[in-house]
């Protein structure tokens, strides 16, 4: 009867427009996606969970409640599942196709649970593996199956919540072994938080919050989506994807404290290298097959990315042909090179974004040498030419470009630093180490909120800068209101000379970013000591590494590695290679 009634109530939620209703204890409807409680109520005869429905009883925990906290019993992996779910949701709102969540990420996560023997396998390990209380197990076994469902339902809107529903034979987690022996100070909101944080098995890849992001990126890569790793991390930084203190997306009833703090509290933005490393580790752990091919029509192909970054940093489109040349000569555009294969002997993957940017840096070096001299004398020539030929397409003037970029970049960077300084890390749910600290933590939180209220009244009435829509472009030059000159259409005429059929760069010199690569066992192949390099080179590395939010040294390394590919012979001959390399244009 109830079911029918529930089905009958098909109005859209007034807050989030979803149609997914649950019943509260009082018999009122609440929206399962936004927890908005309606005035409409139904007389519910039985409040027990009815199988195969999406109606759940909020705050009527099916599992045991802990003594101290009212809330659900939940497992650490469920926490990660919840985070992953919200991350996938966020990606979907960013325009990623829904298959990513429904198929790819879902199966990756399933595979992870399987590989880490937490679910979807014959003998799932839970906690310390003690088979506790069979009786209790039996009693509750009928519920366990729907417990996962319960979580999915309440943390996620039902229409997609089913994604994470378990198959009937799966998870059969052992009830938590009670932590009576532990001292009161070692505790956690989750059932297995303490055990989880102490687990150190060989060959096991424990899930962490950074690894959820690695999983997300793996799915993006699998889907060949138009999001690079640096984009993904920037979206995290812009708070478009849950990551920083991601436990804030947990439902109220999932209490987070004690050891959970170490697992879920994140107070740093993700680091490119770190996530990259994690991504490979996760892929290897999951034993994933070769990823779909990255071909020339993919966004992640260096040619596409080069074009994108050329536009982004306001360089002439004509440079595209040169970047394509470099991509071809170095072989970094090959499918086998670009495609990620975790099973391969030497597991590595391409940092697509960093590499594309490195190509551009290399081309700039080919064109202008960037020795703090030649680029300026070329600029003089271009300026003089443009003075005399005002009607024609202007020649690219490095100095002018530098001035425009410097101004924009400094401004951008200042704003970025200010925004970071104002970033709000602390969530409404304070974290505390144990029950003893709980009231103190909540009191502090209240105090902070009150003080913040007081100061927010004193903040200038200037309206907050409207949040820009998410974009893979951080800089825009072609719009009407940009106010800065756009160099996309400028020509490279003054920088190239024709020689027979081909055009070659006027500049015939080149210097290598790294002469000798480090061969010791330390991880970096080269170092970047700023003062050793020309100011132009420093400037270019700075803008690009800022755009990608990576360390300047990382970009320098990528440039060096790319040069190694391009000038392989020179390296092999082990000659001091500062001789010219000409790029032909067909």
């Amino acid at each position: 009867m109830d079911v029918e009634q529930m089905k009958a109530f098909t109005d859209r939620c007034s807050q989030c427009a979803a149609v997914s209703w649950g019943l509260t204890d009082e018999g009122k409807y609440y929206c399962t996606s936004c927890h908005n409680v309606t005035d409409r109520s139904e007389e519910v005869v039985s409040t027990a969970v009815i199988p195969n429905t999406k109606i759940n009883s909020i705050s009527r925990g099916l599992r045991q409640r802990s003594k101290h906290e009212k809330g659900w019993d939940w497992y650490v992996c469920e926490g990660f599942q919840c985070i992953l779910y919200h991350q996938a949701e966020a990606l979907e709102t960013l325009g990623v196709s829904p298959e990513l969540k429904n198929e790819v990420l879902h199966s990756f996560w399933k595979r992870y649970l399987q590989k880490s023997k937490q679910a979807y396998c014959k003998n799932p390990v839970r906690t310390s593996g003690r088979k506790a209380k069979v009786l209790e197990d039996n009693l509750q076994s009928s519920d366990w199956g729907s417990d996962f469902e319960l979580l999915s339902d309440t943390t996620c809107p039902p229409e997609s919540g089913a994604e994470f529903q378990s198959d009937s034979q799966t998870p059969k987690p052992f009830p938590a072994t009670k932590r009576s022996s532990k001292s009161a100070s070692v505790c956690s909101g989750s059932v297995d938080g303490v055990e989880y944080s102490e687990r150190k098995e060989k060959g096991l890849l424990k899930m962490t919050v950074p690894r959820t992001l690695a999983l997300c990126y793996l799915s993006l890569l699998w889907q060949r989506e138009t999001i690079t790793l640096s984009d993904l991390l920037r979206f995290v930084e812009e708070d478009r994807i849950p990551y920083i203190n991601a436990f804030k997306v947990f439902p109220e009833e999932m209490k987070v404290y004690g050891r959970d703090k170490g697992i879920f509290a994140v107070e740093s933005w993700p680091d490119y290298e770190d996530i990259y490393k994690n991504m490979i580790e996760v892929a290897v752990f999951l034993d994933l097959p070769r990823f779909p091919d990255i071909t020339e029509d993919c966004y992640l192909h260096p040619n596409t990315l080069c074009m994108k970054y050329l536009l982004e940093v306001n360089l002439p489109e004509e440079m595209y042909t040169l970047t394509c040349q470099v991509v071809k000569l170095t072989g970094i555009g090959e499918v086998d090179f670009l495609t990620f294969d975790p099973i391969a002997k030497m597991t590595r993957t391409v940092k697509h974004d960093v590499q594309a940017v490195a190509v551009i840096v290399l081309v700039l070096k080919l064109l202008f040498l960037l020795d703090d001299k030649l680029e300026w004398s070329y600029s003089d020539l271009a300026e003089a030419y443009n003075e005399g030929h005002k009607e024609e397409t202007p020649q690219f003037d490095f100095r002018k470009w530098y001035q425009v970029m410097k101004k924009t970049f400094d401004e951008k960077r200042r704003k970025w630093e200010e925004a970071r300084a104002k970033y709000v890390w602390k969530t409404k749910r304070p974290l505390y180490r144990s029950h003893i600290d709980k009231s103190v933590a909540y009191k502090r939180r209240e105090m902070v909120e009150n003080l913040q209220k007081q100061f927010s009244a004193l903040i200038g009435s200037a309206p907050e800068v409207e949040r820009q829509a998410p974009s893979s472009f951080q800089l825009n030059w072609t719009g009407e209101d940009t106010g800065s000159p756009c160099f996309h259409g400028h020509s490279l005429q003054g920088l190239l000379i024709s020689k027979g059929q081909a055009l070659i760069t006027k500049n015939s010199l080149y210097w290598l970013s790294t002469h000798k690569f480090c061969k010791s066992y330390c991880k970096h192949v080269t170092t970047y000591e700023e003062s050793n390099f020309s100011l132009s080179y420093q400037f270019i590395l700075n803008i690009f590494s800022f755009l990608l939010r990576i360390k300047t040294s990382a970009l320098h390394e990528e440039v060096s590695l790319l040069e190694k590919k391009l000038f392989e012979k020179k390296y092999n001959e082990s000659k001091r290679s500062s001789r010219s390399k000409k790029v032909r244009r067909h």
Partner: protein
Amino acid sequence: MMSDFSEELTKLAGAEDNPETSEFSKTRMHFPWLQKHIEAVVTGGKKRKDFAQTTSACLSFLQEALLKHQWCRAAEYMHSYLQTLEDSDTYRKQAAPEIIWKLGSEILFYHPKSNVETFSSFADRMKNIGVLNYLKISLQHALYLLHHGMLEDANRNLSEAETWRYGEKSASQEVLIKLVQAYKGLLQHYSWSKKKMELSELDEDDYAYTAKSRNMLSQSSKTSTNICTLIKTPGVWDPFVKSYVEMLEFYGDQDGARELLTNYAYDEKFPSNPNAHVYLYEFLKREKAPRAKLISVLKILHEIVPSHSLMLEFHTLLRKSETEEHRKLGLAVLFEVLDFSGCTKNITAWKYLAKYLKQTLMESHREWVEEEWKSRRNWWPAFHFSFFWAKSDWKADAELACEKAFVAGILLGKGCRYFRYILKQDHETLKKKIKRMKKSVKKYTIVNPGVHT
């Protein structure tokens, strides 16, 4: 009275800020690498969380905004900085309330949208974060209220703070409690002196007079106990000492006042404080103490602050003294006053010097003059007697120029440009004076004729 309070407020605020600014000046001194290095050492080489990085960046933006008086912007950063109260790093969490209080109260003091209620509610909140800040914040809160003329509220605040106890920790805050009490005493003194004023307007035979004076007496005894404990502790307690002495004198306890002031000036445990000597001197002057006694007090003041305005008074005392040593010192005192750029236009000082130079030379103590001149010979001409000064002095104050010209003539000879410039001027009233001056210079100049500068 009120001006004393506000002065004290700024003084106290300044004193309070010192340890902090020196700590923060690391960032202002432009050694960012040093700062980073120190932080890396503190965290044991571990990478700092971005939380720690952004909040410390937030703090420097906040300080920058305060420095530029951008109160709205500062409030914006404060809004974010409040997060440090929840820092998981215990050390930083404990340091946070004090920083927030100092910067926050500054914002609220100046922000156009802020008012007494906002400030008070901020203070009340901050008092209860971290035990050790309670007294300091209470005291500063009271000073803020005083600044806004809310004496009763301030008094209530101080009374609350006075009775505050927190187990062991209150012991370490003894000085602060004493200070709180002393400020209470100061407030009582204020109402006492108001009553004193009213009393002076009343007739002594009036019935109200006796009641009032009895009332005053009880007030004063409360005040003395409140202030007394503080001023026995070494420190600079000028307003308290002044008020207390005023009361002692009013009730005829001259010995008590003298003892207190002598102790305040001469006790070695107390920091060197020119005002202590000034107070003692003023008290002795009121008492009509012998000249030798006055001279001995001012001698110390002269050592600490040779440019003090009392130095001219000191000079007159010395001039009249019988001992030669004092009279010689009298000359040195004048020279030293005029060493300070703030005193260069002090006509009394120049007048005294001109007169006293003449007197000294007449008494043929030429070696005294030469001794003082020796160390100034190479910089006074440019400092006081340049052609530029001659012109501008004459334009601004002809009388001053005359006195200076005389001194210049004596010290540098009649060929000196300052002297010659003034001599050339034609002035109706000063004509005679200049003529006389020319004569005396000729007679007394310490420069041998023929040697011109």
